[in-house]
Every structure is written in structure tokens, then in C-alpha cells.
């Protein structure tokens, strides 16, 4: 090989060195990406390893009355439900009236009130309240007044059921 070839070789070598410098820069980018990915993978693995049981969100929605139904229809259904339970519990309702549904704007929840007057034994009242608790919906009892009237007790109370407002987006 003559010197001319050697010179060409040296030039080629110089170009190679420059090329390798370029590759090295590219390589350092890859190494940084690999470091970042390794951290992310470790994070994901940790998340995968410590999974906790997720609540069934749909079942939590069942605690409220049907979002799609009108408030008056729901009050009717609520009244029907209460009457049925009262009948089964031998809890004698003398009067039921509907309150005005009110909207809690912060939580987008409608509050559906029923005003109930009744005459009954404490035992029937206990059965009634126990059944109300078990209907599978959130019902709040408030403004309860119990008075003794001869052998029976008279009851006045409000029962509140709840409905989520449909999010129309």
C-alpha cells in the first residue's frame, strides 16, 4: 500500500472519529432515556405490586335514587316503598306528605323529603326503622318527635332520600 492510500485511510479515520463523536452524542441521549424509563418502569412495577381493592363505584351509585327519573316520580316511589315497609312492620302511618325537593348545588344532589305521621308501638317503630335502613338506599331520619298518647306512641318524622343530578356534558 502506498502513502497515498495511507493518507486516504487517515482522512477516513478522522471522519470516523467525527462520526463516532456524533454517535456518542446520540448514545448519551439514549442512555438518559434509558435511565428515565428504568425509573418509570420501577414506579409502574411498584404500583402493580401494591394494588388495593377498588370500591365498586356503580354499587355506590345505587345508594341514591335513579338519576334519570323526575323528582315527583321518585317521591311517589319513595312513598310507596315507605308505606310497604310500614305495612309489613305494622307501623301505622296516619299521614304522609311530600316536602319540596331541594338541590344541593355544591354536590349536585337533590334531597327528596317525606313527612310522616304515625301511631304505633315502639316495637313496630323499631321494625320499621330497621327495614328502612335495609332498603339499600341512603335515607336520613330527622325531625323525629315521639309522644306518648294513651297506650300507643305517636310519631312525626321526616325521611330524606337523595338523587344525584345527571351530569349533562
Amino acid at each position: 500500500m502506498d502513502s497515498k492510500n495511507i493518507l486516504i485511510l487517515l482522512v477516513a479515520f478522522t471522519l470516523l472519529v467525527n462520526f463516532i463523536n456524533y454517535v456518542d452524542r446520540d448514545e448519551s441521549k439514549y442512555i438518559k432515556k434509558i435511565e428515565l424509563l428504568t425509573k418509570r418502569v420501577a414506579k409502574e412495577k411498584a404500583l402493580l405490586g401494591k394494588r388495593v381493592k377498588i370500591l365498586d363505584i356503580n354499587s355506590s351509585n345505587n345508594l341514591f335514587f335513579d338519576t334519570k327519573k323526575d323528582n315527583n316520580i321518585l317521591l311517589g316511589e319513595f312513598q310507596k316503598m315507605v308505606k310497604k315497609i310500614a305495612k309489613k312492620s305494622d307501623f301505622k302511618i296516619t299521614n304522609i306528605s311530600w316536602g319540596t325537593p331541594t338541590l344541593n348545588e355544591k354536590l349536585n344532589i337533590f334531597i327528596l323529603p317525606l313527612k310522616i305521621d304515625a301511631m304505633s308501638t315502639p316495637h313496630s317503630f323499631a321494625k320499621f326503622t330497621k327495614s328502612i335502613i335495609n332498603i339499600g338506599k341512603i335515607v336520613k331520619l330527622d325531625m323525629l318527635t315521639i309522644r306518648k298518647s294513651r297506650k300507643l306512641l305517636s310519631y312525626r318524622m321526616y325521611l330524606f332520600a337523595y338523587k344525584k343530578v345527571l351530569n349533562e356534558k
Partner: protein
Amino acid sequence: MQKSLKEKYISIIPIENSFFYSTVVDDSIKFNRETLYLNFAHISPYLYFEIVPFYDGSNLLLWFTPKIDKIVNIPEAYLLFLELSQKDDNAIFIIDGDIFRVIVIKDGVLKASFISYNMGELEKQSLLDEYQLENIYSLPSYRYNIDDMLDNYSPIHYYKWYFSNQSLKDKALKYLDLSVVPISIIIAIFISFEVLKDNYIEDKYNLLKQEYLSIKKQNDKYRDDLKNQKKTKEFFEEFYYDILIYQNSFEVISQIFHIVANDENNTIKYFKLSGDSINLSVETHNAIPILNQSLKSGYFDEFKIKSSRELRRKKINEVRYEGKLKRLKKSSDG
């Protein structure tokens, strides 16, 4: 320099075994071996010979010698010239010995070196005339020992006497030629290593990326569920805190009635629950157990006896209790 090294690499060309010739050349001219032979071979008195050149400014000093032994060959005449020019740089020097060694220095430049077997006054005068010099010195040979003169000559000048059949350029090219294969191998290894390394890094990146995407996909639904669960939790917390507000009234009523019913002589006369406020009127022989157990139930911030009066006809007390329900609290774990 150690003596053994000198013996190994340095040889002295004796005056009697060489032919000296000097000429003037342009300062910029440096002959390679071929051009040196081309220009001066005809001067050589030998049939087979080597030329040892030395550039002293524009003066080119040439020694023709039939044999060169080592890689550094220094002419004896030059060593004598270095010694003698210190004494007089315009003179003829005759070193007496078995033979006469003649060194001619003119204007500080070595002009001639040769031997003579006969050096009478006539020969001396003839030399002075020939070289147009005025001084001639006869010196004893013992004062000019070769080894001593070599010791006085700094080794850093030895390279000037380096002998090679090839020019420096040829030698450089030869070494370059020799280095082509190793360099090529190194370059090939280097490139291969770089390519392999690059591929390895790229493969690792791609594998990691796939692993990340796969595991992320597995987690995405869980992550969404977690987000929704958090929202639901926040919603319920707000719901309990803003709407239900107080402890579950069904449980509270059940608990109070249970407490009252612990004593079969107790009779509830009146009960009112409104918001956080509870009013209870009970006919009882002992008011304290109801008070204590209600406080222990954990439902109340406050529970107290408001009034108590004795019903003489029934021989029992009518006790009125008043309580404040606790508010529901938001959990702190988020």
C-alpha cells in the same frame, strides 16, 4: 553513553580508510542517498563504497569509504577537525605517528584530510602553498586519542551521522505501510465495538420501552379506577359532611331506646330528634344509668339531665335529658 553501547552502534572511519571531499552547496539543498550517489559517485576512488555526508552550513563534507560497520559512523578526520579548529582555524595540522595524518582547516572549515607516509619540509611548504595558508603544526599522535575525542563529542550530534540505505521519507513510508494493517484492524474493532454498543443500547431502550408500555397498560385501568375511587371518596365525604352532617339517626335512636329499655320500669314519655339536638323524657327510678350509657355511646358531644321531678302518685321520677349529636368528621387520609 555507556562504552558497550558505543561499541555496538558507533564506528570511527579512519582517515586512512576514507577519502574526503568537500564542496559548497546551497543551504536549502539536502541530498537523499540516490541523488548523493548520482552527483558525487564519480569522485570516489573506490569501486564499492558508501558515502557519509555532513552538512556544515553551505559546506557539504563527504567521506567515501569502502565499508560501513555500524549505524552511526563518525569520520576520525571530523573529530580531529573539532579538536584542532579550537587551536587554529586557519592552519595545516600534521599528526605524527606511524603515518602522518594531515588535517587542513581554512576559515574554520575542514578543507582536506589525508595521510602521508612522507612529510618533509618540502611537502609542508607545498601544502601551505596549495591551501594558501601560513601556519602548519606538527603534533604528536598520543595527544589525539580517538576515544577521548569521541568522549568530547556530544552524543546529541550522533544523529547527523546516522547511516541508512533508505531516506527518512522512505523509512517513514515503510513504517506507515507496515502500520496499515494494524490500524485497519484497530479501526475495524473500534467500528464493530461502536456498532455493537450502539445496537445493544438501542435494543435495551426498545425492550425497556416495550416493558414500560406493557406494564403501564396493565396499570392504566387501575390508575383510572383509583382516580375514580378518590373522586367517589371525596364525594361521599362531602356528602356525609354537608348533607348527612350528624351521626346516623337510626342508629342513635336505636341505641337510646336500647339504653332506656335496659330497665323494664323505664318508660319513654317524649322523644325529639331535630338536627343535632335530642330531647328525651323518661319515667325512671334511676336517671344515672341512662345518662352514663348515653355518654359512653360515643354519639354525643354533650348529654345531660335537664330536669327531674318526682311523680308522687306513680312513685317514679320523670327525667328530662338533653343532648347534642356529634358532627361527622372528614377522614384525614385523603
